[in-house]
């Protein structure tokens, strides 16, 4: 074990995890006799080697930032929101629909309208799970998973059967939104070699600041944290658990909805039939798990993920590595990052007070168990 200060540990663990992931990925490629150097260099080349590549990487990261924020707000309150794909999808369809239906409105009305409506749609979907949890004790893991499918098929029904035909190209695809309803910024796309990067990245940066401010500086964030850390003590202190469940789920869903909005108005410009739950929902969750509760962490994690994703395409085309191997390598890297707590065992905090943490963890574990039982009892 290596002795380091707690601060250094927080920095070292993710870095070592990422390196370990790349090493394992290299071993996997060697086993199948592909050249890892060539593979990784073409990965970085395509993700970061050109203006277009960088633009696409940022484009890919944009919705993930929103969704990771959404996931973290609900987990701070102690809820496992697995409904991220559904909430994002609701935001996507809503924003596009409004953009098409109110095409004539000027940009300063239409764009805010789309964005707000999209985030409200996400909030509504998550809010249902929050409401079920608060008033009926329904396990949010189950309800959000079910909501993913409800949203998936409801969106299909809405856009294939309810949406006015004049807004669609065919049953599966809508028309694209006009310039006044789009997040694309011509000079920005041009700067990044005609990539699909959009103004959504600026909104994402603002969202990160809001997230930081919300959790660190506001009473709402304080209550969410308190309820998540110790629901008994927060009830004792007069915080309403029902209120906080619902607020945290609404906020969580609103951010996820925004993830869908930037995907729609920034990346695709339209909506098309989805056959499975949205990838960005699951990727956003991984980003959140890697980035932790910090805004900077989420930003860096979303970029890493996007480098892997965009670079993975490059590995296939430039280095000729089959899609399956690329997926395994990326999965290995993500796996190592996800189990970074195991990497954490390598480092021992210098001068740390083992008892305090030891007792605290034993305590929380105990409380958690008691808590779970009570939740089980309610349900």
């Amino acid at each position, binding site marked *: 074990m290596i002795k380091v200060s707690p601060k250094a540990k927080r920095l070292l663990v993710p870095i070592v995890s990422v390196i370990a992931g790349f090493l394992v990925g290299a071993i996997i490629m060697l086993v199948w006799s592909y050249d890892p150097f060539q593979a990784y260099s073409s990965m970085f080349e395509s993700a970061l080697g050109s203006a277009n590549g960088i633009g696409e990487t940022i484009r890919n990261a944009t919705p993930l930032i929103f969704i990771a924020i959404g996931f973290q707000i609900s987990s701070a309150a102690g809820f496992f929101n697995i409904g991220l794909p559904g909430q994002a999808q609701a935001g996507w369809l809503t924003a596009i629909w409004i953009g098409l239906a109110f095409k004539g409105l000027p940009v300063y009305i239409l764009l805010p309208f789309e964005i707000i409506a999209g985030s409200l749609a996400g909030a509504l979907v998550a809010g249902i799970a929050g409401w079920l949890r608060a008033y009926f004790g329904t396990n949010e893991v189950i309800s959000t998973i079910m909501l993913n499918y409800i949203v998936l098929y409801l969106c299909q029904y809405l856009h294939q059967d309810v949406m006015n035909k004049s807004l669609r190209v065919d049953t599966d695809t809508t028309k694209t939104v006009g310039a006044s309803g789009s997040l694309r910024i011509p000079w920005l796309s041009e700067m990044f070699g005609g990539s699909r990067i959009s103004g959504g990245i600026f909104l994402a940066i603002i969202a990160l600041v809001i997230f930081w401010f919300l959790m660190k*500086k*506001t*009473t*709402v964030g*304080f209550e969410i*944290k*308190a309820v998540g*850390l*110790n629901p*008994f*003590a*927060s*009830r*004792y*202190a*007069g*915080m*309403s658990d029902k209120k906080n469940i619902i607020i945290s789920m609404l906020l969580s869903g609103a951010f996820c909805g925004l993830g869908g909005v930037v995907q729609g108005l920034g990346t695709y410009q339209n909506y098309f039939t989805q056959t499975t739950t949205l990838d960005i929902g699951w990727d956003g969750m991984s980003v959140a798990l890697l980035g932790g509760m910090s805004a900077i962490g989420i930003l860096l994690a979303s970029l890493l993920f996007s480098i892997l994703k965009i670079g993975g395409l490059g590995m296939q085309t430039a280095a000729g590595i089959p899609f399956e191997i690329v997926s395994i390598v990326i999965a290995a890297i993500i796996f190592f990052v996800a189990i970074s707590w195991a990497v954490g065992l390598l480092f021992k905090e210098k*001068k740390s*007070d*083992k*008892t*305090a943490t*030891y*007792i*605290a963890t*034993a*305590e*929380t*574990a*105990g*409380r958690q*168990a*008691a808590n779970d*039982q009570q939740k089980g*009892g309610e349900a």
Partner: protein
Amino acid sequence: MEKEIKNIIEMRHIVKDFNGFKANNDINLTLRKGEILALLGENGAGKSTLMSILSGLLEPTSGEIYVRGEKVNISGPNVATSLGIGMVHQHFMLAQAFTVLENIILGHETTKGLALDFKTAREKILALSKQYGLAIDPDAKISDITVAQQQRVEILKVLYRGADILIFDEPTAVLTPQEITEFIKIMKNLVKEGKSIILITHKLKEIKESADRVTVIRAGKSIQTVSVADANDEQLAEMMVGHHVNFKLDKDPLNLGKNILEVKDLHVNEDRGTEAVKGLSFTIRGGEILGLAGIDGNGQDELVEAITGLRHVEGGQVVINGQDLTNKPVRQITEAGVGHIPADRQKYGLILQLPLSENIASQTYYKEPYSKHGIMNEQAIREHARELIKKFDVRTTSEQLPASDLSGGNQQKAIIARELDRDADLIIAFQPTRGLDVGAIEYIHSQLLKQRDAGKAVLLVSYELDEILQLSDRIVVLHDGAESGEVKPDQTSETELGLLMTGKNTKKEAAAND
């Protein structure tokens, strides 16, 4: 012939530095074979720290440890275990969802091939439990057994690992008087079987009843070790706090105000739905302390939770300051003028991971100056915390330390500071001095009396008769969720209270027989 080892443990010049703060500052301690050594010291004096060093959870900054005459380096809990040292912590470390048996063998499983050898383990545990009089059901789940039983599990766990040096950190703080008597018996059994014990406790009475010698530490330094037979309470208390401690409280004459709390025919259920409070009525007026005596589990928890809005009231009324607050939200009740010192400080009183300052603000964070328009004012929160830390003598190096880093007694003081600082008309104090040293107890008691003298109503719920008798103006005895009698502290005895607590009302019975 082999030389008889007299000192089974010697700790010499132990220093433990937490980022510049010396929690242990040159402590010497010796434990003789077959004795019970008490460790006495104020909250935050460094007792738990010293024992964590001995059990391998903390590394000392400097100092030497000798076990059975040999110098050792206790670099981890496993080393301590192999040296025969076992510790039962201030806050238990059991997995709630596991059974007693599973908890005991956790980490020291014996296997038969690939499978766990439960049979041998069970036999060994039952043998130990019989040998030392530690009755326990090995198949019960931890979450289903009482605190006293959980403690036995912790002791068995330590014995199972073959310890012959046992460390108990405030074992009696969580026990009722009856269970304490039982516990002292267990310790005596252990010593009789050749074990040596270090006992941390703040209760001088227990030291008198069980220990052979007592080592007093103050502010991280060992002050003196004396034989218990040669010491009296006043001397011990003085050694411990460094100045004279007043055991007698001066009480002003009663000056009653208006009704503050009225509980009318209250019915409350416990978790499983059976009735726990069965038609209880009482009133507390401003300027008086009502003591609620009773054996643990006779409806005290449910009553307090119902009054404070944490539990649903099935029938009856709770009126505070003339306002009907039955089944109202917790915050509304708090705002109506209630301060609540909860019985379980780590479950209800604190959010251990958050800084002390935010814990101190946990009842007021939404008000100015601590926040404005929903934005927290960290500066104001910290300043206020520093003020209270000073005023209530909470021993900590910084208000930004997570609450979990405070010693047990200082966590309690922080809660009391928060609750008394709000100028509430009704103070509900549930076991307010649990785990506090005599100096701190004296201080808390005088604070509660000050509240009374300032015209506040105080509901004191305690399992300790001494505390109830000392502070209360009236005593209501609770038995099986109902009042079994009301007495005046100066016109009753421990015997009468004891009888009332078991539900025998001699006066009522006498009246009925007339």
